[in-house]
C-alpha cells in the first residue's frame, strides 16, 4: 500500500439507516420511562460527576439511543451513580437505571466485539 499521507474521513453524521437502533429497544425494555425523556438536561445540570468532569448524561443517553456507542463506555465511567439526576427529572425518568443498564449492555457489546 502506498502512503497517502491522509485517510478518508468518516462522516460525522449519524446515519439512521445503518446505526444500531435495536440496542436502545433492549434498554427501553428494562427502563420503559426512558421513552419519556425530553432531553431537558436537568439531569446534566445537577450531576455530581458533571461538576468535576465534562460528563453529560443527557448527551450520553441520546448517543446510546442513536446507536453511537464509540467511546460511550469511557464516558459513562465518569458517573458515580449517586442518583441526583433521578431526583430532578421532570418526566420521572429512571435516569440512574438507564446509566446502570447502559453500562452493562456496553460491556456485553464489548465482549461480543472481542469474541468476534
Amino acid at each position, binding site marked *: 500500500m502506498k502512503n497517502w499521507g491522509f485517510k478518508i474521513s468518516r462522516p460525522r453524521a*449519524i446515519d439512521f439507516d445503518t446505526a444500531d437502533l435495536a440496542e436502545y429497544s433492549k434498554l427501553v425494555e428494562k427502563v420503559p420511562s426512558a421513552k419519556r425523556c425530553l432531553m431537558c438536561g436537568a439531569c446534566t445540570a445537577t450531576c455530581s460527576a458533571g461538576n468535576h468532569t465534562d460528563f453529560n448524561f443527557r448527551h450520553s443517553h441520546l448517543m446510546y439511543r442513536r446507536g453511537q456507542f464509540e467511546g460511550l463506555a469511557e464516558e459513562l465511567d465518569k458517573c458515580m451513580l449517586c442518583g441526583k439526576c433521578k431526583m430532578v427529572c421532570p418526566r420521572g425518568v429512571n435516569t440512574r437505571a438507564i446509566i446502570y443498564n447502559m453500562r452493562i449492555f456496553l460491556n456485553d457489546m464489548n465482549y461480543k466485539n472481542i469474541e468476534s
Partner: protein
Amino acid sequence: MIIGGGPAGLEAAYNIAINGYKVTILEKDNEIGGNIKKWVKLFPDFGDAAEIRKAFADKVNKGNIEIQTGVEISELYSENEKWFAKNGNNVIYSADAALLATGFEAFDARRKEELGYGIYDNVITSVDFEEMYKTGKILTAQGTVPKRIAFLNCVGSRDEKVGNHYCSRVCCINAVKQATEFKELVPDAEAYCFYMDMRMAGQFYEELYRKSQEKYNVNYIRGRISEAAATFDKRIQIKSEDTLTGLPMKMTVDILVLMVGIESSASTTELSRQNGINGEYGFAKSLGLYISDNLTKKAGLFLAGSCKRPLTLPETVADSRAASVQILNYLKLN
C-alpha cells in the same frame, strides 16, 4: 351577512339567528364546514371531525339562516351604513352588518422546494395525511406499508424565507396526533417527529405528547430537516441536524409528512385589504387585541376566527361567540 361557512361562520350564524335576526352565510365551497372537512379526527381528544361538522350543520339548520354555498365573494364594501358583498358574477348580497369569517388556508408546501413536495411522491403534507387517513390506510406512493415515517414541523411557519415569522400553533400537536394515528395503524413502524420547539400549550397537549412517546414510541428529534431527496427505491432521504447530539444526521424514510402551517386565506387577504383592515401576513386586523378583538375600524364589519391569526378550533368557536355578541349589540344600538 357572514362571509365564510366554516366553524367561525356557522357558530356566529347560530348565535345571531337565535336572537331573531336574519343571517346569510356566504361559503365559497360547495359545502359548509370549512377546514374541518379535511380532517378525520381532531386533537387532542381524537374527536370525530365529521360528527363535529354535523353538529355545526345542525345548529344552522334554522329558519332564519340562509346558506349560500359556492359563492366566492370578491368585493366587500359599505354604503350608507349597509354592507354589500359581490361575487364573481356580480351578484350582490347586502346586510346591516358583515362578519368576516374567511379563515385560513394551509401553507403551500411547494414553496419549500428543498423539501421536495410535489417533486417526490412520498413527500406529503399533513392535509394529504388526513386525506389518506380517511381511507383507513397510510401507504407509500408505491402502495407499500411504510416502515419509517417522518413528520416535519414548522413548514411555512416560523420561517423568514417564506415571510411567515409567526407560529401556526396547531402543527406541533397535529404532528403528535398524526404520529399517534400512524403508530396505531402500523405499530411496527418507526415514527420520527422533527421539531424546532414542541409547543404543547393547550389542555391535554402535553399529555398526548407524553403518551405518544411512552405508549406509541414516537421519536422526537430536535432539528429541522433542510433537505429531502428521493433514493433509488423512491424512499426519501432526509438531512437534519440532531441538535441535541450536536451532530448532523441523515435517514431514509418511506414517507415524509410536512406539517404545513396556517396562512391567511386568499379571501381574508383580499377582503381585508379592500377595507383597509389588512394586518400582518395578510391576516385581517382587529381594532384591539384585548377588548375589541372582534371589531374593525369600519362600523358594522366584524371579525371571527382564524382570519385574524392562527387559532385552534375551540378558540375559533369561542371567538365566534364573542363576535356574535358584538354584532348583536351593534344591531341593537343601530
